[in-house]
């Protein structure tokens, strides 16, 4: 499942390892709920304790940051006791579920807000990109905004002047550069904004998911620029993203946060494996909430993963044949209905889609069975997607969330070939002929 590894080897040629960011016991507490009249009371209480030389009473309480559970107090630890170090020249990805504390960590590192406890040390100039185009003013021209935004990000006027031609060129907005940016299309706006950021030259660069904007061409350009930055060496980059493919491409090392706590720092592939295993529930049966879908023409009620002998399988040993049964209900007579089962990898890269023949259905319950008896998939996690549509275009049901198929790594041998268990999605080997010529 691991691809894009070619850049990793280039970076670690540095001489000595020098710690450039040291994060020591960082915690950040937030108050839940509304800030209103209670704030004054708590402030006074806090102040009173401080005068008496006591500890802040609100620091003792607080829950770990699990978004879904009910809180027991009004304070929550968005980050708790985070410790790690980053070396000069390291490109570090930061991953975690929503609410794991990624953005809070970046905010602390960018000095937008300060930690509740702990200390962060920096050995170099920091520039942070939590957003592109910070401070852009719609009434000002592209050129004026380049200067303003550049200065906000920490460049001097002289630096910007020396780079402005490159920036304009990179943005591809030359024709509009003396037009107010409020007239720009949103894509141009983002291009211009990213172009400024791309020419920052700090020793430490902190990047939030800013690459997730713009069109495909621009994203490619932006990722390329990030790679250039990292390959030139010496520069340290911290990069937050939900896009595992980009993380793998850019970052040799990754940090995993979970519920505000530091889970792991290590080689990106190991960390991503851990992250994915945390988010996957090994299930053989998925029941879908029918309350919402009961008004549709057709809806899916249940999916189960079985072997060919109809045993439910939470994990399928590599090489074993399997099938997926999908139960669905038809509410009213429907013509030309097709049911589809898609399969993607964990980064949502499509692997295969299978569609049934168009069929006319009377109201009732049905079961569609998709049988996999030819291709042997490699070990790992895959996502399943179910779709029901009318004809080729009208989508009636589309379920693409949290349905996982797990292929376990039970040993599988095939004659004459060596199985490397992480060499792709498909285990089946091609025919190979070697002859002397």
């Amino acid at each position, binding site marked *: 499942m691991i691809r894009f590894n070619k850049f990793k080897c280039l970076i670690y040629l540095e001489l000595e390892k020098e710690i450039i960011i040291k994060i020591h016991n960082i915690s950040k507490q937030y108050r839940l709920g509304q800030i209103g009249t209670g704030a004054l009371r708590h402030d006074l209480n806090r102040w009173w304790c401080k005068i008496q030389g006591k500890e802040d009473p609100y620091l003792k309480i607080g829950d770990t940051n699990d978004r879904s559970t009910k809180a027991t107090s009004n304070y929550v630890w968005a980050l708790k006791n985070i410790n790690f170090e980053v070396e000069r020249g390291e490109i570090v990805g930061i991953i975690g579920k929503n609410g794991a504390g990624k953005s809070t960590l970046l905010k602390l590192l960018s000095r937008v807000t300060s930690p509740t406890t702990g200390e962060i040390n920096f050995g170099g100039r920091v520039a942070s990109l939590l957003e592109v185009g910070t401070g852009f*003013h719609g009434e000002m021209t592209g050129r004026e905004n380049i*200067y303003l935004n550049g*200065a906000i990000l920490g460049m001097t006027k002289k630096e910007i002047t020396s780079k402005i031609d490159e920036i304009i060129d990179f943005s591809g907005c030359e024709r509009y550069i003396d037009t107010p940016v409020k007239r720009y299309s949103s894509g141009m706006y983002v291009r211009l904004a990213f172009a400024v950021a791309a020419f920052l030259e700090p020793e430490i660069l902190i990047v939030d998911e800013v690459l997730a904007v713009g069109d495909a061409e621009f994203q490619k350009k932006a990722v390329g620029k990030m790679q250039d930055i990292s390959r030139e060496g010496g520069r340290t980059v911290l990069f937050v993203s939900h896009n595992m493919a980009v993380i793998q491409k850019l970052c040799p090392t990754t940090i995993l946060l979970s519920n505000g706590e530091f889970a792991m720092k290590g080689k990106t592939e190991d960390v991503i494996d851990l992250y994915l295993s945390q988010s996957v529930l090994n299930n053989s049966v998925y029941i879908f909430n029918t309350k919402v879908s009961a008004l549709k023409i057709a809806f899916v009620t249940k999916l189960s993963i079985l072997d060919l002998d109809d045993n439910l399988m939470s994990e399928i040993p590599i090489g074993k044949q399997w099938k997926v049964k999908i139960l669905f209900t038809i509410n009213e007579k429907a013509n030309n209905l097709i049911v589809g089962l898609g399969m993607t990898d964990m980064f949502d890269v499509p692997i295969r889609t299978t569609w049934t023949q168009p069929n006319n259905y009377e109201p009732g319950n049905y079961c569609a069975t998709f049988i996999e008896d030819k291709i042997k998939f490699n070990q790992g996690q895959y996502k399943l997607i179910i779709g029901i549509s009318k004809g080729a275009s009208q989508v009636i049901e589309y379920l693409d969330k949290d349905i996982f198929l797990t292929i376990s790594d039970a040993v599988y041998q095939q004659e004459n070939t060596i199985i490397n268990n992480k060499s792709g999605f498909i285990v089946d080997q091609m025919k190979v002929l070697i002859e002397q010529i």
Partner: protein
Amino acid sequence: MSSKNIKSDWLYTITPKSNFFSINFKEIWQYRDLLLLFVRRDVITVYKQTILGPLWYLIQPMFTSITFTIIFNNLAGIETGAVPPFLFNLTGITIWNYFTSCFTGTSNTFGSNSAIFGKVYFPRIISPLSLVVSSLLKFGIQLVILIVFYIYFYSNGADISLNGWVILFPILIVMMGLLSLGLGMIISSMVTKYRDLNYLVGFGVQLLMYISAVVYPMALVEQKMPDFAWVVKYNPLAYIIETTRFMFLNVGELPFFGLIYTLIITIVILLIGLLLFNKTEKNFIDTV
């Protein structure tokens, strides 16, 4: 490497608590270009897509002055001595506008900049400082119209003359700038948590004008309402405005002790402002 050695090598350190007065002047100097660009932004974007553009800077004090002259001098009968009432009011309003422009701008520093402050770090004080500078430019333009009217009235035989002290006028302006900066920073620091203050600032400034001797000479209050004269006498703004008129129109006396008092108040308020501002800037984004 021992840990002590490493520590001295750090470029900077983030900790939860700030030092009492940790103003990093070097850092502010490094961001001087940003300050100038903010000033530029403030100036060029205010009257974009208006027909009269920067003329609005001139129209506003002029019409205010006309209104005040009609109401306070013609209707209410406030005496301004030999000085034409219009010029008397215009002088007061020009310097008063400088105060309100600085003060209302800086008092909302955190509110109006939260989008930027929430995303990127720079010394936060750059924002209020840039407002003081851009207000200064605006004040400069308004000073021009004051001078134009001054020459007009002078050439029409009005009994007005500059006082020699006028060469110290720049000091007065700096004092006014720092006083409004200090007040603005105090309010802006508190407003992040307690937004009620926003409303207070809105009408508070209007009311403040009436106790700042903008439309009447200080002596008049003492003469007509001796019981309430202290309200004006303890108001440092009143002395600055009174002194401005003394310098430009040669009316009244130089309130020497009043100015010393104003200077002390300015320094105290500025220090309190810096202190609160420093304390607030670290975490305000969590409460704004």
